[in-house]
């Protein structure tokens, strides 16, 4: 998770001690002097969903899936997370609001000192639900809107889903819940990007999360629908431009990029272009502290049946199951060669990643996309859109001095 608005528009307001990624529900994205040590945990609280989105990484379904945690099991699981020191639990799905006990569990997470945040399609968020979630201690609601009405509804498999999501957003805002919009870009909805940003400004949303498509779940079936790397670069550049434009106009929109750490390198290049070398170095230094792609380290996922995954998108492989042993024990078990390899992937990356000067702020971006497209866990991410001349040479951080 990379905050464009923080890096480009708010750099002087230094991070004040909290984690960067973990600040998903905080009022401002914050950057710490140290890498976050415990993972933000995405919990797919259910596999059920009232929609059927074409890109769903969780393969969510309309039917109930046996094996979901009971309320009691869910509470024990949340206790495991709290004991381990996870900073944030992201209630996701499926659609978490189909769980009747969601509010109770959000409240319990808050009580345990976990920061509860929500990822939802928004269509079930009545004002009453929003109010109850807010009162239970929910810190943030991220609502998925993947385009303007026609494209969003096609994507989400249901007419009226867009309007329902917007109503959900409005209910959240009405009750004072910090609310953001999540938009996963594909070839099909790319033309709606600016319209979606306009929508969030119009509605007064706090945050725009731009998601790259990862190649897990049903997303894997639509690899061909992903943008080309060149198109992706253009989209990110547009998001950066829009962020600057809106901030120039006094709109305090927080803009976050998720799912492709080539974006980190791009932002250094962008900062150099727009603001000069000193800013580029500062951006680099912040991103280096941020730590690059968080898979298997600063982000974890636990699915509806208790399987632990290195990220929420990597549903095809599980490190273990929290019904067998506690989350922290699974997460700390580096006798698992895949987990330990992921944590030292900078030394294992091949191809252009091996010598890339942005390796330490990108860390090879998505290992899942590399695996899905090449079969090689340490091959370059096919969605790296950096130009060769950008990846060569010394890294542009402060220690290396000005390269230009």
């Amino acid at each position, binding site marked *: 998770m990379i905050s464009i608005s923080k890096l480009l528009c708010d750099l002087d307001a230094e991070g004040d001690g909290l984690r960067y990624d973990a600040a998903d529900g905080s009022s401002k994205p914050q950057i710490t002097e140290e890498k976050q040590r415990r993972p933000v945990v995405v919990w797919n609280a259910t*596999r059920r969903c009232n929609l059927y989105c074409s890109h769903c990484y969780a*393969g969510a*379904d309309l039917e*109930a*899936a*046996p*094996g*979901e*945690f*009971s*309320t*009691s*099991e869910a*509470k*024990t*699981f949340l206790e495991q997370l709290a004991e381990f020191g996870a900073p944030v639990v992201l209630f996701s799905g499926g659609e978490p609001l189909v*769980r*009747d*006990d*969601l*509010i*109770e569990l959000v*409240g319990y997470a808050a009580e345990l000192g976990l920061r509860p945040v929500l990822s939802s399609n928004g269509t079930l968020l009545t004002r*009453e*639900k929003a*109010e*109850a979630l807010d*009162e*239970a201690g929910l810190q943030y609601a991220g609502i998925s809107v993947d385009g303007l009405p026609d494209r969003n509804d096609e994507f989400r498999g249901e007419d009226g889903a867009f309007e329902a999501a917007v109503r959900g957003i409005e209910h959240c805002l009405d009750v004072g819940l910090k609310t953001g919009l999540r938009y996963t870009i594909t070839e099909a909805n790319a033309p709606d990007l600016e319209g979606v940003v306009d929508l969030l400004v119009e509605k007064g949303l706090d945050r725009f999360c731009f998601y790259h498509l990862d190649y897990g779940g049903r997303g894997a079936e639509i690899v061909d629908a992903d943008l080309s790397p060149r198109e992706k670069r253009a989209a990110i550049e547009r998001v950066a431009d829009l962020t600057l434009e809106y901030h120039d106009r006094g709109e305090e929109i927080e803009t976050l990029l998720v799912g492709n750490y080539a974006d980190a390198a791009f932002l250094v290049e962008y900062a150099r272009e727009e603001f000069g070398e000193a800013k580029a170095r500062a951006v680099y230094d912040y991103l280096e502290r941020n730590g690059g792609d968080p898979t298997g380290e600063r982000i974890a996922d636990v699915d509806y*049946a*208790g*399987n632990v995954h290195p990220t929420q998108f990597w*549903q*095809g*492989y*599980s*490190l*273990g*199951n*929290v*019904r*067998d*042993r*506690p989350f922290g024990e699974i997460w700390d078990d580096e*006798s*698992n*060669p*895949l987990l330990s*390899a992921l944590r030292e992937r900078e030394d294992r990356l091949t191809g252009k990643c091996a010598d890339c000067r942005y390796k330490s702020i990108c860390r090879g971006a998505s290992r899942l996309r590399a*695996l899905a497209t090449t*079969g*090689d*866990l340490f091959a370059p991410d096919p969605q790296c859109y950096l130009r060769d001349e950008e990846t060569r040479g010394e890294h542009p951080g402060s220690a290396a001095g000005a390269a230009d």
Partner: protein
Amino acid sequence: MVEKARRERIEAGERGNPTPQWEVFLREEPGDPLRHVGSIAAGSESEAHEHASRLFGWYAVDVWLCPADAVGRYSTRGLGEAERSDDDGDGTDADDGDSGDGEDDGDGEPRVYKETAGVSEVNSL
């Protein structure tokens, strides 16, 4: 039973929904013990082997695969109900009120557990 073992049986029946899960065991070097390294989703054994080889092929000399639902798992540290009798059935939702629309389907918490997770052995301890 619980007095003797203090382990709970972990039900694996629906863990592979929608794709079957395979437990993966690796031997790093000849003579080493097999080590459990998690599970993968795959439609068939050959697909599972291919998948495991992509993830671990660079590492292991032997790979064993076992359908997850064929593995009997017993743990002393599961999420079982026995550990949480404090809040079972205490009507916690009453505080929140709002969950009423979902709570009127008659599913008391323990029964939801049995029906959805299918882990009645754990529950009945």
